[in-house]
């Protein structure tokens, strides 16, 4: 399959100088402090940041639920402030962490109702609903009342609702929030399968689960206090903090101990790991190298020492490391209070 993103095709998302200020008391709060962002058609883009970072505010503006205070946001070239009716036909959204749904309707009825709101013919709507119910794996619950669904089932139904109009862009706001591991995996697999089925489909995901963003997103923007701190592929972002190569090496024995490796050229440091167990012929060493190429000297030296390599694994920095590097605090640490107007610089 191929994607012809012809030159005239506008970006899936185009945001310039976007600001949103909530007029709260005792003083207004800046939720978005001048965001610039562009997402290409066909991208799986992630917004990663802690609670209160501004992710949900941005997604609300892009989904036409909220107006910006200033700046511009466009979806496939259409302005979110003045052309919301056009945008609503080609996008959809699913939020997590909520118990939404008309409890008195069956799954099938609720979905069909939305096909009508999206302008499908009645019969076409039923066909679409039945196909999607099968696609999300809710065949057994199709005639079940929404009020009787589990949290995971309800979120699957919401995903089906989000796909009813075959959106060109799908906004996912913390879609796996509050789900157990298996249900979250099911949602992620569904989104990936949907996106892979047709080139050009675009997804914007907000999450504060770093592993989820790492797994799903082609590019990620790290957001905090209403600003985008960095944008890039997960690898690009990690390389920002990876100045050295870190390996974990396991050998059957190591004559001379870790210092025998620390003296080698290109080795910054070598230290015995806490879980080493020489009596069981398993010695683990944490190696910090100036670059990956220095590993050759280490392997040669081990051969000379008669050590047999049991395992060798490169330690990758995580997106949390990136966040800590950018913000100076961890994801789960207490966030600073929201930024008051006038103090955002």
């Amino acid at each position, binding site marked *: 399959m191929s994607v012809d993103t012809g030159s005239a095709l506008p970006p899936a998302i185009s945001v310039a100088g976007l600001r949103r200020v909530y007029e709260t008391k005792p003083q207004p709060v800046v939720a978005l402090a001048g965001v610039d962002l562009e997402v290409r058609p066909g991208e799986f883009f992630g917004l990663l940041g802690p609670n209160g970072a501004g992710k949900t505010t941005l997604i609300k503006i892009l989904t036409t639920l909220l107006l910006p205070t200033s700046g511009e946001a466009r979806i496939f070239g259409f302005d979110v402030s003045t052309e919301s009716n056009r945008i609503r036909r080609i996008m959809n959204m699913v939020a997590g962490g909520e118990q939404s749904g008309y409890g008195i309707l069956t799954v099938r009825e609720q979905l069909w109702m939305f096909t009508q709101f999206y*302008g499908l013919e009645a019969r076409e709507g039923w066909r679409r609903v039945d196909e999607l119910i099968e696609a999300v794996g809710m065949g057994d619950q199709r005639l079940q009342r929404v009020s009787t669904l589990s949290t995971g089932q309800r979120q699957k139904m919401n995903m089906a609702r989000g796909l009813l109009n075959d959106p060109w862009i799908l906004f996912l706001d913390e879609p796996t929030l509050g789900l157990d591991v298996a249900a979250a995996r099911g949602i992620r697999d569904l989104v990936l399968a949907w996106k892979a089925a047709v080139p050009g489909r675009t997804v914007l995901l907000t999450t504060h689960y770093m592993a989820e963003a790492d797994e799903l997103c082609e590019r990620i923007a790290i957001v905090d206090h209403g600003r985008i701190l960095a944008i890039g592929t997960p690898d690009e972002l990690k390389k920002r903090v990876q100045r050295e190569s870190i390996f974990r090496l396991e050998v059957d024995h190591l004559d001379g101990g870790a210092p025998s490796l620390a003296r080698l050229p290109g080795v910054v440091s070598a230290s015995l790991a806490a879980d080493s167990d020489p009596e069981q012929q398993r010695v683990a060493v944490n190696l910090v190298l100036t670059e990956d190429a220095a590993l050759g000297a280490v392997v040669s030296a081990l051969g000379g020492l008669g050590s047999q390599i049991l395992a060798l694994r490169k330690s990758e920095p995580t997106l949390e490391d990136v966040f800590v590097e950018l913000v100076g605090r961890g994801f789960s640490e207490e966030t600073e209070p929201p930024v008051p107007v006038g103090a955002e610089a």
Partner: protein
Amino acid sequence: MSAITSPGHGSGPASPVPAGLGQLDAGRFDPKRTEGAGLADTVRSLRTALLLGWRIESNWTDPTLFVIYTVAKPVASLLLLVVMIQIIGGSASDATRTFVILGSALWATVIAGIQGPAWSVLDDRERYRMLKYVAVSPSRLLVTLVGRGGARLAAGAMGTAVALLFSVIILGLRIDLGAVQWPYLLVVLVLGIVPVIAIGVVLAAICLQTRQESWSYPDALAGAMFLVTGVVFPLAVLPDPIEVLGLLNPITWWVDGVRRAIVPSGPSSIGGQGSLWTAVTGTSAPDGLQVIAALLLTGALVTLAATAIFRSSERRARDQGLLDRTTGS
């Protein structure tokens, strides 16, 4: 705009794509898809909202309780008023009893129509958490709320019918079916539906903005309107400024028109001794055509105002981020 093209599923990966994940259209980004089908979409949304409203109305508990609720509430209200009249008025005339019974029975429809759109906002936002999903669909929120209000009005009309039946069988209300002006009744009933729901839309616009205690607003407004629309007593007993408010309210003309159609010889709630109508026009009461004209005029004004107010409220709700804000009320 150019296009994103796809060669289709046939040349794709080996694993088959579930039908639901495939494309609805030809796989191109066609700007025409953003335009919709205009009136056809509006009609479809209205029909769907009516259906949804009816399902919510008729399924809020089980059918037996629904019927009891539909019967019990209007009949209880009716009985309360009739007993009060008997106690206070003693030998109240048949005409007075008929006046009160008809007005009270009709009120079940009016109050349901007024509450419908407002409670739909509150239900969807606070209970079902679906308001934002309806709001971001191409269907206009105003259209869906009108549909939901229409469904509730239909449920209210059932209550009116039950209350009238009860009045005939139990309270001895005498309605000469041969004297009923059926065509006139039909015209007035139809003309009244729109302004009743329009007033509900105004309330819905208010509920979009308010955060707490919104559930009581429809009842509060309906209670106030009950006093100024000639439902149980003529406008002439009201102070002049309040009477003016009543005359500007389409519900006043609707209730009077329906009464006039069912009991052509009965008293009017609008004219009579001491009324503004009589003072200004010199006639004892408006005739049938005047009632329809006034209903049309006030109904059109209220409907236009309601549309403008709701649009303004919706815009403000988007500006303030109120469409998905649950208040816990």
